């Protein structure tokens, strides 16, 4: 009886179901079917045998990944650099938003357009720009260094500078985007709060700390949570392109995504690649759940689910 009723209801809404069908099927094929990949590293995958016929190998692929130190290196790089990305975009984004919020409308438009500019460039183009700065013989940076009597450096062979270079590049490209998000929150604040605060003699800083920041807190929390959720996923385009895949830079710039890509397309080591992929998916999932749990504890209304 109940099933019959449900079926009737379904018939009533079949047109909506059909509207959703292309998207649902697409996600099934491209997002749900690949989930079998989570158990792929437990197999010795052979292209010709396929998933079902390839033999099981237990934890061998993981042992290999964790024993040769690769796992530690790529985990450290992914977390460290991504964390710097997040903090830089958060702090500077709010800062720029507060600054834009202080100028008059006609300037806002100008600044918004200019600082949004780099966001539209692809990472390939950004890598061209970076090359023109860091090129060994002709790079802008070396030319300037030479003028100050500092000897030029082969930047693409010096891993120690690269976390900083990557953070600057990423911030340069995405700060405008980040700032506009927070600015959108700031213009939503009722001006009366500020007027009341002025009445009580609040200084500029007090207004920022006690009105602006607390009132855009939901946006800050959501943005932070979203980016922490993705902290285990490096932006492949960024890490692969800006470094020009220079092997000298792997110690500080190799992240899980570039590692998986090289294992898959370079050496064709499916076992290693899928082991790193599963490691990334599982830890990434746990991080999202924890981040959401923490937010829920702090302020339930800001959590994602």
């Amino acid at each position, binding site marked *: 009886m109940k099933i019959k009723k449900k079926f009737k*209801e379904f018939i009533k*809404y079949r*047109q*909506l*179901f059909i*509207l*959703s069908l*292309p*998207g*649902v099927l*697409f*996600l099934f*094929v*491209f*997002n*749900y*079917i*690949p*989930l*079998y*990949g*989570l158990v*792929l590293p437990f197999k010795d995958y052979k292209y010709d045998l396929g998933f079902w016929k390839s033999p099981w190998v237990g934890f061998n692929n993981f042992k290999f990944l964790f024993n040769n130190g690769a796992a530690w290196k790529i985990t450290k790089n992914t977390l460290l650099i991504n964390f710097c990305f997040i903090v830089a975009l958060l702090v500077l984004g709010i800062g720029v938003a507060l*600054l*834009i919020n*202080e100028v008059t409308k006609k*300037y806002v438009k100008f600044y*918004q357009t*200019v600082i*949004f500019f*780099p*966001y*539209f*460039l*692809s990472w*390939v183009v950004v890598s*061209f*720009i970076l090359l*023109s*700065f860091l090129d060994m*013989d*002709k*790079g*802008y940076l070396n*030319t300037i260094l030479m003028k100050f009597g500092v000897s030029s450096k082969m930047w693409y062979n010096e891993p120690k500078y690269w976390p900083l270079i990557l953070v600057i590049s990423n911030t*340069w490209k995405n700060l405008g985007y980040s700032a506009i998000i927070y600015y*959108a*929150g700031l213009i939503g604040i009722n001006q009366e709060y500020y007027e009341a605060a*002025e*009445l009580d003699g609040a200084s500029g800083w007090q207004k920022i700390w006690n009105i602006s920041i607390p009132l855009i807190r939901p946006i800050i929390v959501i943005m932070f949570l*979203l980016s922490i959720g993705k902290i285990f996923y490096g932006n492949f385009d960024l890490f692969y392109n800006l470094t*020009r895949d220079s092997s000298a830079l792997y110690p500080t710039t190799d992240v899980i995504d570039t590692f*998986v890509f090289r294992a*898959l*397309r370079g050496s064709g080591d499916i076992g290693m*690649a*899928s082991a790193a*992929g599963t490691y990334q*998916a599982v830890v*990434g999932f746990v991080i999202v759940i924890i981040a959401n749990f923490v937010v829920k504890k702090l302020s339930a209304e800001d959590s994602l689910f």
Partner: protein
Amino acid sequence: MNSNLKYKTDKVIKAKKSRKNNHILKNWWIHLIMLTYSLFCIIPLILVISESFSSDKAIAIKGFSLFPVGFTLNAYKTIFNRPDQIIHSYMITIIVTAIGTIIGVTFTSMLAYVISRKDYPLANKTSFYVFFTMLISGGMVPWYILISKTLGLNNTIYALIIPYLIIPWHVMLMRGFFSDIPTSLIESAKIDGASEYTIFFRIVAPITKSGLATIGLFTMLLFWNDYYLSLMFIENDNLVSLQFLLYRIMSNINFLNSALAIHSGVTSSAEIPTDSARMAMCVLAAGPMLFIFPFFQKYFTKGVTVGAVKG
């Protein structure tokens, strides 16, 4: 009482005045910071442009600089002498972007509309179905195997379009736009006997134009700037998109030389202005979009905001 009120009003006026004064005082250092930051955004682009107008000899001696050294149009002349490769790449990118955006936005908004309909019995389930894909994925390896081996899309233009058709995040973003539509509008259309398809395509879609434009632009930017799919699935020289062309020039300068030399009939690659031509390619590939996208900035801002508030 009266005097107290007057005192307060005085204070308000004073506060407003001081705020105005503050603005003038404060503004100069705010503008100073913002102008400096704006310069930081622009200068790198100028650097690339001026390199493309420099002569390679001058670059070899003086290095890259903010203004063209030994101003010349050689790089552009060499490229435009036989522009086959860059025109071909433009075609690939335009086809992929156009088809991908049209189909992608249609499917994305259809799905987003359905999960925004509160009366649809499966709305919550479907919503979670979409959301779940944002939490965990099978990773690059099975995805690669699926597209290249199982579906056999390697070295086809489909490999550049299909994988990006539905982005779960865009679905969630679009749902935010649709949830603003009053239920009564849909109800009354239903009473008039309109089918769900009519309601969606004739009534709902037209009034969420700005949402569609936002998603459309995000999707366009995604397709236009993508080289990842090419890197994964394309080895065929006939399917080199703009970004992939740039990537190949970057990773292997010989690729530029061969692309230009073969077509321009120059036998020795020494005659090709390498450094400047590389940057000229970059300008030609990235330039047009840089001028187009800022015009649609309003929609991006909107998308960013809706995403942040309703995400």
